[in-house]
């Protein structure tokens, strides 16, 4: 249930991240929430509200920090982002290990469906609702800001504000997902379906539907696999999404490998 809610909201965000060539940023944000979650864990144990609040604060801080860092370092964004996420990951793991057991660390990093209670379900459903409504409203400016930022600036579309709001949505979804999927794996359900969807549609709208469908299928399949094979839920779901991605690369009608191999020369037949 919760995962289906996530699967509805996260992939469209992932799609925009990919189209803005910000796939790495999502990864950084996912790692960035870990220290916050870990701090919450230190304060209150495995309590969802505290950990979620900590993650939210840390995630937003990283989002703002990453933007500032990339401006300060003159656009060499990828390198600073990689540095940032390594530090965040190390800090988070160190914090959790300090007090917690290895089991708790695994739960935080990779998720566990059994850890999902009513509060977590509500959080997932709520964040998914907020995200979808916000995306419906922000669709046009976001597309414009991705496609032609110069034009967006010229017509006064305030691209930077939309972008900041968009990053906040990303953080919100990562927070909602970490309980079920773990902080390391939450980003997988966001990015992999989006990347896979590229092979199924040529326009943003179509890609969005494809991404949501792939995400929902992977979430369902992954959870079944997790339950029957006793694998942590996060990796199971991400593996399922990864399988869907592989399938898309091979068979997808847009730039897939098989259609390309099978295509006849344009004069034949």
């Amino acid at each position: 249930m919760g995962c289906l809610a996530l699967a509805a909201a996260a992939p469209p965000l992932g799609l925009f991240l990919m189209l803005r060539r910000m796939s790495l940023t999502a990864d950084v944000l996912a790692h960035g929430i870990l220290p916050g979650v870990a701090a919450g864990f230190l304060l209150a144990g495995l309590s969802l509200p505290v950990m979620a609040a900590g993650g939210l604060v840390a995630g937003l801080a990283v989002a703002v920090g990453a933007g500032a860092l990339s401006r300060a370092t003159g656009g060499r964004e990828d390198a600073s982002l990689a540095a940032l996420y390594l530090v965040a990951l190390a800090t988070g793991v160190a914090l959790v290990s300090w007090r917690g057991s290895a089991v708790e660390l695994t739960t935080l990093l990779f998720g566990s469906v059994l850890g999902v209670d009513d509060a977590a379900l509500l959080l997932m459903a709520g964040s998914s609702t907020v995200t979808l409504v916000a995306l419906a409203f922000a669709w046009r400016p976001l597309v414009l800001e991705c496609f032609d930022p110069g034009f967006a600036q010229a017509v006064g579309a305030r691209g930077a504000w939309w972008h900041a709001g968009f990053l906040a949505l990303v953080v919100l979804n990562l927070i909602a997902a970490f309980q079920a999927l773990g902080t390391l794996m939450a980003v997988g359900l966001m990015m992999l379906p989006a990347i896979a969807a590229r092979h199924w549609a040529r326009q943003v709208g179509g890609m969005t539907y494809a991404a949501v469908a792939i995400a929902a299928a992977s979430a369902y399949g992954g959870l079944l696999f997790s339950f029957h094979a006793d694998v942590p839920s996060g990796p199971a779901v991400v593996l399922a999404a990864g399988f869907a991605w592989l399938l898309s690369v091979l068979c997808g009608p847009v730039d897939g490998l098989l259609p390309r191999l099978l295509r006849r020369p344009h004069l034949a037949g």
Partner: protein
Amino acid sequence: MNPAEIRLTDLTLTHARRPAVHHVSGRFAPGSLTAVVGPNGAGKSTLLRALAGLHRPETGRIEGAAGQIALLPQAAAVDRAFPIACLDVVLFGLWGETGAFRAIGRAGRERARAALAAVGLAGFEARPAGSLSAGQFQRLLFARLLLQDAPVILLDEPFNALDARTAADLLAMVHRWHGEGRTVVAVLHDLDLVRREFPLSLLLARDCLGWGPTAEVLTAANRLRARMMAEAWAAEPEPCERRDAA
């Protein structure tokens, strides 16, 4: 169309304190058709960006331009790989009317289709913008300009890398705008084209070397001066000195 007169008063534009446009004064009359010419690095694009309100003047003033301008920048800023249909690209031209939220409606869609047809892209509505050739893409951006319906239109090297037929079609569009009483300013490098088609010229080499009827501005002597100034920048780009002397 009733564009206002655009006045530049002692305008200086800088990039990181180096002047790109240096103490330029003058006016674009309402409904005029002006070519901006000059060597690379002469500040032509910067001037257009400043007119569109995207570059803040270091000193001096621009008056009369606010809120009535549509700018076609050099194509580099657009993400051509973005998966979006041609019709949707053109519809962004309605942004001034719809903003982020207001519905576009059937009339807007009709206007977008008409604009596509006007630039010779009828039937391209659902094609992904990324699949267009460079010339077709420039036509697409012109269609978006058509929809913006602005009294003042700024074009930054609009005919670069286009074949003769596309350039001629788009030039006809420029003359149509001129005929409708809009103010049009275009940055161009093809001086023969400027002499043939543009009544007014502004010769820019950071400083304004001439601004008026094209035949009087594009003289051999002026162009030699422009080239010598450009060679001097390459030797030693210096910060603005005139203000200290004044």
